[in-house]
């Protein structure tokens, strides 16, 4: 059921209890987790934090902790699946789910006792009404009761009553079949597309605000959570802009607190500011040229994998009057005169080249003299840390590293994350260029398909879901509906990611999740639907071709 008052129904319930936090491996979940941890520290609520990377780990973690803990908080996992059936909990376990995955499973919505959804009820949900899906079973019992009563009547009347009863029964069965058919249709419509709702970090920030325990750190984490949804293309532009406006209100509220005092804040304090900044990834920590070359938006607009595109880029830079030497230097060492009007100059020139949205509303933070970061920088750095493909580190090690990088006291970790993110972006750019140039993208009926072979450089980097998704979206910018497979050599499996068609007004609804499930069923391919995003699965290499054939027939 949906929680109406998050303070009363969630926070005060767990106030004196021990809680288990089960957190999914994406940046929004990490930020939400940090906010919740900070709140728990304030009020000394004891908790245990367990990172979970998929459904199996969720099940294991639940089994391990179910004896000792009653309250479970799931962050960015668990809403889109029938949780009670999957975990089989005892009656006194209570689950608080704050998940951006939609559609929320109908059982989770209508369960009154054990599942509490920390989701706003009007958050674009369109849940089918109760009567359309669930039907009381009592009516069946009444029928049989009536019939047995009638059986004791004398035989003459019985026959007449029996006929009446039989007719009624037939009528009821027909109504029931109709109802079931309608139910199947409603559920199919409801569940066929997968999309994302409001950021979990923003939900928890709102909780902190209601408790008036919100701090600038929490606000910054909420902003990072929102930006993560935008960077990984999980929400529409409209929603992003609306949410940015909400965050802007909070930012100005926090900033106004200190404006009246004569002595302004010390330079080491954190300042968050609204920026209408360039869409060039990591440009303040890199050189301008590299950033333009490796950002998805500019690279696709110029088509930098062609010679023509590269010439256009040179023209673009010349048009702005930026000397090549300056542009290839580290951003911090560029001439001040160039840096001052950079954003306006770039915006003007990019309009000429057809890039209308080179600037985007976002937030930046700075503390100390050296440390300036944009929200998207933080997202890329943390994502690179979370999915770094080092051999020695397990996934939970990476989770811990990424979690640490979000704290202000771990700037070194953040910088190492930025370095990893740069490598990742360069790898994506190169892979995209090679895919397009060597025509690795095949048209398979209703979708395009690209398969990265074993020997491709940086293929280990792309065996992680988020990096792979970024790669696909990058490729997609100039193409349409798409799936992508990457070989994971060790396990002999392929990770397949499905991306919906790209358009200006796309509502980011992804139908590949259901399509994958059905295709797997029909061909009995050995698949593993372990990720919380249903559009990412693992598939045995041998089954690849028949799976694809099934997918083609399904979608055409």
């Amino acid at each position: 059921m949906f929680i109406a008052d998050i303070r009363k129904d969630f926070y005060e319930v767990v106030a004196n209890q021990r809680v288990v936090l089960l957190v999914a491996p994406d940046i929004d979940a990490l930020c939400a987790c940090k906010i919740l941890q900070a709140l728990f520290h304030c009020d000394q609520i004891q908790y245990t934090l367990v990172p979970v990377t998929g459904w199996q780990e969720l099940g294991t973690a639940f089994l391990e902790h179910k004896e000792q803990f009653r309250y479970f908080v799931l962050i960015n996992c668990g809403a889109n699946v029938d949780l009670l059936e999957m975990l089989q909990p005892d009656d006194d376990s209570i689950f608080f789910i704050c998940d951006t995955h939609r559609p929320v499973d109908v059982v989770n919505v209508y369960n009154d006792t054990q599942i509490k959804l920390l989701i706003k009820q009007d958050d674009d949900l369109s849940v089918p009404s109760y009567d359309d899906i669930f039907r009381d079973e009592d009516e069946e019992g009444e029928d049989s009761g009536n019939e047995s009563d009638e059986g004791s009547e004398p035989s003459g009347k019985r026959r007449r009553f029996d006929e009446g009863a039989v007719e009624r029964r037939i009528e009821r069965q027909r109504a029931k079949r109709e109802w079931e058919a309608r139910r199947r249709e409603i559920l199919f419509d409801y569940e066929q597309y997968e999309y994302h709702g409001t950021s979990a970090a923003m939900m928890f920030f709102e909780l902190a605000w209601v408790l008036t325990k919100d701090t600038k750190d929490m606000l910054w984490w909420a902003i990072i959570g929102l930006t993560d949804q935008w960077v990984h293309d999980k929400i529409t532009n409209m929603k992003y802009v609306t949410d940015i406006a909400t965050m802007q209100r909070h930012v100005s509220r926090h900033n106004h607190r200190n404006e009246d005092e004569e002595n302004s804040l010390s330079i080491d304090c954190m300042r968050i500011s609204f920026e209408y900044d360039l869409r060039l990834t990591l440009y303040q920590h890199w050189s301008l040229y590299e950033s333009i070359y490796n950002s998805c938006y500019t690279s696709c607009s110029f088509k930098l994998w062609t010679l023509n595109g590269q010439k256009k880029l040179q023209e673009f830079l010349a048009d702005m009057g930026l000397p090549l030497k300056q542009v290839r230097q580290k951003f911090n060492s560029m001439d001040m005169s160039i840096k001052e009007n950079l954003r306006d100059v770039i915006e003007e020139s990019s309009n000429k080249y057809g890039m209308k949205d080179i600037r985007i509303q976002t937030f930046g933070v700075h503390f100390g003299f050296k440390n300036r970061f944009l929200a998207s920088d933080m997202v890329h750095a943390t994502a690179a840390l979370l999915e770094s493909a080092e051999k020695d580190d397990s996934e939970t090690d990476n989770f811990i590293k990424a979690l640490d990088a979000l704290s202000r006291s771990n700037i070194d970790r953040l910088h190492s994350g930025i370095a990893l993110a740069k490598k990742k972006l360069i790898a994506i750019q190169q892979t995209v260029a090679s895919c397009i140039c060597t025509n690795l993208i095949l048209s398979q009926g209703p979708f395009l398909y690209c398969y990265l072979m074993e020997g491709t450089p940086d293929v280990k980097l792309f065996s992680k879901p988020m990096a792979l998704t970024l790669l696909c979206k990058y490729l997609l910018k100039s193409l349409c509906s798409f799936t992508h497979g990457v070989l994971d050599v060790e396990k002999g499996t392929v990770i397949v990611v499905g991306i919906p068609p790209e358009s200006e007004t796309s509502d980011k609804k992804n139908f590949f999740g259901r399509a994958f499930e059905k295709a797997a069923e029909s061909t009995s391919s050995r698949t593993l639907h372990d990720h919380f995003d249903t559009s990412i699965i693992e598939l045995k290499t041998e089954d690849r071709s028949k799976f694809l054939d099934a997918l083609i027939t399904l979608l055409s």
Partner: protein
Amino acid sequence: MNRHQDTEDQISPTKRSHHKDQEDGLRQVLQEMEALYEQNQSDVNEAKSEGRAKLIPSIKLRHCCLLRNQRCVTAYLYDRLLRIRALRWEYGSVLPANVRFHMCAEELQWFSQYKKSLASFMRSLGGNEGLDITQDMKPPKSLYIEVRCLKDHGEFEIDDGTVILLKKNSQHFLPRWKCEQLIRQGVLEHVVS
């Protein structure tokens, strides 16, 4: 010549893995002392009975060696005692088996007596309940701390009976006094954010 080398080896830092060597070394020193003493004894008797004053310097030399050996051995044993005392503060009143293996019976007895006197001292402080001074060696900043588990440690019970499963890379928010022991042992790590 007199084997001072033995005592030199002895006083070098006692690594627990050289337990056997230490025991042998100690025995060698004691044997050396015995040998010296025997020699001195016979020389003194000779000097007394035959009046050979020329033996006096060598007797004096051996005596000095004996005294030095004695000082070295007692210094070593005393150092061991100091370390054993520190073990009480580090590990608590129950020593892990691998540490106990390296202690001899008398040392164990000394340890239990030290434990008893520390306990009676702690009981005498702080009114009726006594005060556990082995907790909070540094002034605490908060009641609960966040800790991260560095290795799998299995189940861990806290005061009200709940059992926490300490798995690698899980984080917990627990009362400080329960975590201190494990932090010292290196199972948990205090996370400062």
